[in-house]
């Protein structure tokens, strides 16, 4: 199939393109962002609506940019994928050499005009790069060990760099996205099982040698090896109190005593899900989880009906990233996994996670919009 052919069949005008966007995904994204706006209004610390307005504005701008980016045909994403990965990698190395240290972690790179976290860029870049790699790879090679090594390297290098910053959360997310893409691309179980074993050993090794004290403390507290209700355990304890006392329908909007009276730390960032449950109860928490579930399902649907391996793997990778964010964050605040600094995407205050996810969904929207084009392998421009 050629571009010309598809162009002949579908009207190409801007407004037609706009109309054919996946509005289900856009609606879900907007609904989730609105939850964030509502929650930020609930605990506006300074009594003004500054934070909710900022959150809404940020989302509106990013959504506009995402829609604009979605207009780009698949081949643009395809062509840009390795380049993007290369840039992200170079920036990560740049952070290693000349990064700016904030709050004990070197994550930011000051580019003069803007300062950014290259690790966030990498979350999207790894998906695109691996999707392209498997798209390019002849099917008979996909199953061999030799051709499995390059993607492992593509994942391992940035994960190691981010881990060194140190940013455990982001490295977990990068690894999760990359591994998910490899898994979906048909990685053989006979490679997966030994890798799982190795990963387990690696985890223990990492716990002993690589992790920082504060990270180890969090794991110790989670495993019950240490009881520290005023230190590392404080966040989770307060979070559990808030959730446990909320009941089916919660304390009511703006009525959550744990959140409103500041017992719950990080309530507008990493622990915002706790505040949602405290004020809206199990019902509110479930609704938010369902919204995320629907968004994942929508992204997977895009992956299923995409015609190219690049599109399929890319969209599924974005869905996997979203799932990783949501699952790790909500499990963390409910005390199911140790504390890892991962926000609840689109709801937590702050632009970083939102930007990553919106970039990912710009790609998903683009794949969906251009699903009739073959894209991917063999397409030259």
């Amino acid at each position, binding site marked *: 199939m050629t571009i010309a052919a598809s162009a002949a069949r579908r009207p190409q005008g801007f407004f037609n393109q706009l109309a054919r966007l996946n509005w289900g995904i856009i609606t879900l994204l907007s609904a989730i962002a609105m939850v964030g706006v509502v929650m930020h209004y609930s605990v506006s610390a300074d009594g003004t609506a500054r934070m909710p307005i900022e959150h809404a504005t940020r989302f509106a701008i990013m959504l506009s940019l995402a829609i604009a980016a979605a207009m780009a045909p698949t081949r643009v994403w395809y062509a840009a994928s390795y380049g993007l990965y290369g840039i992200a990698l170079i920036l990560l190395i740049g952070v290693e050499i000349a990064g700016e240290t904030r709050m004990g972690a070197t994550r930011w790179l000051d580019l003069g005009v803007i300062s950014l976290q290259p690790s966030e860029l990498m979350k999207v870049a790894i998906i695109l790069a691996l999707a392209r790699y498997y798209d390019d790879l002849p099917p008979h090679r996909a199953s061999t060990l030799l051709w499995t090594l390059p993607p492992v390297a593509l994942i391992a290098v940035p994960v190691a760099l981010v881990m060194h910053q140190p940013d455990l959360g982001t490295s977990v997310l990068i690894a999760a996205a990359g591994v998910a893409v490899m898994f979906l*691309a*048909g990685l053989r179980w006979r490679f997966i099982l030994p890798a799982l074993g190795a990963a387990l050993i690696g985890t223990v090794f990492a716990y002993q040698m690589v992790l920082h004290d504060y990270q180890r403390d969090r794991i110790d507290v989670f495993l019950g090896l240490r009881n520290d209700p005023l230190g590392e355990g404080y966040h989770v304890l307060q979070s559990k*109190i808030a959730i446990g006392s909320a009941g*089916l329908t919660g304390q009511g909007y703006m009525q959550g005593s744990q959140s409103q*009276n500041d017992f719950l730390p990080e309530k507008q960032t990493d622990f915002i899900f706790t505040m949602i449950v405290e004020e809206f109860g*199990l019902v509110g928490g479930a609704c938010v989880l369902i919204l995320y579930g629907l968004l*994942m399902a929508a992204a997977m649907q895009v992956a299923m009906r995409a015609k190219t391996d690049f599109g399929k793997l890319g969209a599924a990778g974005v869905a996997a990233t979203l799932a990783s964010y949501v699952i790790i964050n909500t*499990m963390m605040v409910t005390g*199911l996994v140790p504390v890892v600094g991962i926000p609840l995407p689109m709801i937590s205050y702050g632009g970083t996670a939102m930007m990553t996810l919106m970039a990912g969904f710009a790609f998903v929207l683009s794949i969906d919009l251009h699903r009739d084009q073959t894209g991917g392998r063999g397409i030259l421009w």
Partner: protein
Amino acid sequence: MSPKRDLQAIFTKRSFLLSTGAFGALSAVGARIAYLQTLDPTNYSEAADENRFDTRIVAPPRGRIYDRFGVRLAVTSRDFQLKIVPEDATDLEATLRAVAAICELDEDWVARRVRDVRNARRFDPLLLRQGLTREQFAAVSVRLPELHGLIADAGDVRRYPYGEAFAHPIGYVQKPTERDITRAQSPEAEREDLPAYLRNAVYLRNPDVRLGKAGVEATWEQTLHGDAGWRKVEVNASGRVVSEVGHESRAPNRGSGLVLTLDAELQRLAFERMAGESAAAVVMDVVTGDLLAMASAPGFDPNQFVNGISSSAFRALNEDDHKPLFHKAVTGAYAPGSTFKMIVGIAAREAGVEDDWRVNCPGYFPFGGRNFHCWRRGGHGSVDLHNAIKGSCDVYFYQAALRAGPERIARVARQFGFGVKHDIGVPSIEDGIVPDPDWWRGQGRGVWTPGLTVNFGIGQGDLLASPLQLAVMAARLANNGRAVAPRLVRETAGLQPPGEAPMIQGVRAEHLAAVREGMYGVCNEGGGTATRAGDLQLAHTPDGRIVEVGPDTRGMEPVRIAGKTGTAQVRAITSATRGVHYSRIEWRFRDHGLFVCFGPWRAPRYACAVIVEHGGGGSAVAGPIARDIMRATLLRGPSAQQAANLAALESDDDIRLTSL
């Protein structure tokens, strides 16, 4: 190589696998929430409430202390105060400057307060200033919106309107000390049977709680304290109050009032009469035992102690050689000197000394190989008991003591209140010393010698008595030998009125009359050592009142009192100081002057004892002070007036804001 794999099919299959995993994980989170809310044994709602609510103590208003006529001597009144919350004070210096301008305070105050606020806890209100006038309070209140962090408040504060005059008997309250808090936490608290509030360290640490630390405030602490209230408040994580939880609170209960036997006017007068001296005066009703005045000079301002006295002010009080902090009237112990001679006289008569026994006084008494001197160098000549008391002849009492014997003197002394702790309900009551051969042996000093008896006869040696004990002695002489007990508290919750005092056993009325006659002579007859003190310039009216002498009192009977002077040696008399006028000796080496008296002679009702430390002979300074206090007492006649009733005093709670 593996057989050909359908990557499309694998993708689809694994997509479902991953999706199922993701949805499973999301469901697990939902289940986890449900678990935390229902099955988890931890009671999170309780934990949340524990976080959220805080019970704040409301210190109770303290019971008031009244004089015998209902005059308020210690009150807990509303006070206009300014507090500041350091956390909220965005421009601390500007705020303090504004306060200083309104309250007319200087730059130094601002600088001190800036330091205080910087060192204080960030979220707790810190007391900046109290005792604001209504105008100042209004002026600050108007500007509150711009003065960030400032709180204008009406709080309870203990105040002592009479200040210095009542500082000793009433004492003061202070913040609980570290010792109070340690005691509250120790197992001793159980043993000492302390009430709940004194075993509660958290309560004691509350900045509004005060405990009595001196005077009746300390002794009657548990009666006066009252029951604390509490209020439930919602707090945030930093402990700041977010809102009140109005329906869950308990109002505090005021402590019981205390009606003292003191007459505020007489007390003030006695205190002022002693100005400049280091002295004490006690006035006692000889029938009821009521202490009408019990003043020690110099005094101190008890209000300084309520919110913590500065260390420099405390040091100044503590190092003053006139000992203002010392409750001399009950804690001071002095050799009674010649005021003890009535006791020796009674003991001698009891021992069989005849009514007309006379002694020749050449000015000294040779005994045991040395000469015991009489205060009058030339001697008194031939004296009987009456003249010996009147002229305070030492030689007579040297010999009378030898005839009476130390055991008998000691017994009579104790019967008249010496060596006895008169528990009037203030701390540190001195029980004094009455030496006798047993006591002497108990001290490990061997066998009592007759020389000691000789000295005992003029109230010297180891004998020590407090002004209160001297007043008790005078009262028991005046009331014809009734063992009246002094009392300071007339009425309070749970206090039983005293029964009638028993007669002193074994003391004959005629012996008492004889020494009383001698005391009359001291004040009213030629040769008396205190005739100046006996001249009260008062007269009895035919209808039984006592009035000042004036043109219209001509022909009326003058009011007379009976008394006795005393001089207690501070250090041994040497040839350098013998006969030298007291004013030419260094203050701290001068003798203590004492005077005891009772009156009116016609029907004795009041006894009075005065001690002036380093005041020289008893007739020089102590006598005139006693005369003036006695004169004021007789003119006022406090025992003849209707005393106040606690129930009536406590029923007018609503006027407490305006009355002071």
